[in-house]
């Protein structure tokens, strides 16, 4: 399925490649429930927030199910430029830190897609799981380096919430892939997730 392998190889080896957009990833890695029903509409209820596209909804910020302290309190260790960094457990793509962005900001001139996929990663420093939003940044040539391929939990494309092989630039004015963020958006272990 995956042009990703190809792409990652590119990202690492070849700054001259122009395959910029020809690839996309992003794997969710949380719930074991979702995506059922006759028409395959994503189904989920309270307490089963899975795996799904996080719609860009600036005003949708309800109270958390269990109190959380927020990103400022998360203890993190390790090198964010290394693919082994804990937040990247389901990230398959280029790290935005390598082309002018960070784990939380798209590089200058790129666009954040309006929808992102959420995974759950284990933070070894505090032993807790967190929800990680893997937002794609799009509309530029390839970031050119820092390709990571940690696709645990990867599923076929008809199960997009866990598929690595989807070009996830929806809402951007271009689906040329640039890089991927890794935002901590909540506790994974306080949401009824495994």
């Amino acid at each position, binding site marked *: *399925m*995956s*042009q*990703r*392998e*190809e792409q990652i190889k590119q990202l690492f080896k070849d700054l001259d*490649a*122009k*395959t*910029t*957009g*020809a*690839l*996309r990833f992003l*794997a969710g890695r949380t719930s*074991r429930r979702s*995506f*059922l*029903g*006759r*028409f*395959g*509409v994503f189904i989920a209820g309270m307490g089963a927030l899975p795996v799904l*596209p996080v719609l860009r909804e600036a005003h949708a910020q309800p109270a958390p199910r269990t109190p959380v302290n927020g990103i400022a309190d998360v203890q993190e260790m390790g090198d964010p430029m290394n693919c082994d960094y804990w937040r990247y457990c389901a990230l398959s793509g280029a790290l935005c830190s390598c082309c002018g962005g960070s784990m939380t900001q798209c590089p200058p001139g790129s666009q954040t897609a309006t*929808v992102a996929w959420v995974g759950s990663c284990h933070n070894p420093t505090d032993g807790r799981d967190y929800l990680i939003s893997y937002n794609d940044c799009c*509309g*530029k*040539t390839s970031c050119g380096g820092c390709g990571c391929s940690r*696709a*645990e*939990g*990867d*599923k*076929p*494309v*008809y*199960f*997009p919430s866990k598929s*690595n*092989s*989807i*070009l*996830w630039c*929806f809402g951007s*004015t*271009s*689906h*040329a892939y640039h890089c991927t963020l890794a935002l901590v958006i909540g506790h994974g272990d306080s949401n009824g997730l495994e």
Partner: protein
Amino acid sequence: MFQRMFLVLGLMISCGSVTAQWDSVVGEVATVPESDVHWFSVRGGTTAFLVDGDAGIVRGTLPLSRFSPAVAPHMAAGKIYSYGSFYSRDVYGDREDFVLIYDFTTASPIGEIALPAKSAGIGHSGMIGLIDEKFIGVWNITPAMSVSIANIESNEFVTEIATPGCAAVYPVSGGFLMPCGDGTIQYIGLSDAGEEIARARSETFFNVLEDPVYDYAVKAGNGWIFVSLEGLVFEVGVEGGSVVVSEPWSIKSTEGGVPDINGVMLPSDDEWRIGGRQPFAYSEATGLFMTVMKNKGGQELFEKPGTEVWAFNMNTKRRGYRIKMEGDETVSSVQLTPDDEPLLVMSTSEGLEIREARTGKELRTMDLDGNLIQNLH
């Protein structure tokens, strides 16, 4: 002044030793010779290489777009189709999406059918399908899933069919199949005009969380072969408007001590899993069924390359031989040509390997590292 320069150049030529006896300096352009069943297409990046498998030579190339997943050959008409997406400034600016039409003999784009800008822009041969030699279906995700239908007789976009939760376009007579997230295969039937006139689903036969089937499938008779990540092989077809799924068989012998067709006792396959980009292939003419295999690693590595290729007989459902990659070489894709003496084509980390499928004997290699191998016939 520029004009003068050209005149000077022209003058010089007339003093040279260029004669008709020598190679023409005008420059000639070749055409693609007649192809046969051993020809295939290999997509590498934005190029589709048209390969003569017996000669081990590229006979032509098609310029695709950076978002073209695959080609859809229509050799009866001497044409090859693809899907393409272009920006006015390469990666930004105005976007246009098309069904791209290529003439085979001249390996040139000869037409376009405008499509809604919704196509996945990524993937494998399942992302585009030639239906009844009359329609091209292209899978979309926005992230809502749908299929765009274009009529290749009138060269017009027909309709977009909503197919939530289902992916790919696997043509069958009168329509196409799609694997779905609820563990079924969906059938969409098309009218003569290309509009949806039928929709059906199989029974739920897999669990997407426990053991989903690949979104990649290969043709088998009037239907398609789907394989689960744990190695269950299903044949799926349409009968009387219903989607019928065969009883599966497993490519893995988990019991150990099972003899192969030569009577050699096999070890357990517990640790082995199917994997790769085109992880399996089927030759209907011979019953050969090939899989890319790797030892150890979880199910989620189903798209990762393997270290062996296993050859099965689809009739006996038993393994005939294994091909082991040497050293660090890995294999990501396998394909079988559709004839009685099929070629086994493998995309490996070293390039392309072409083997005699019945025996596994290596015939030739090519320095071509495209990853999607599609039969032209």
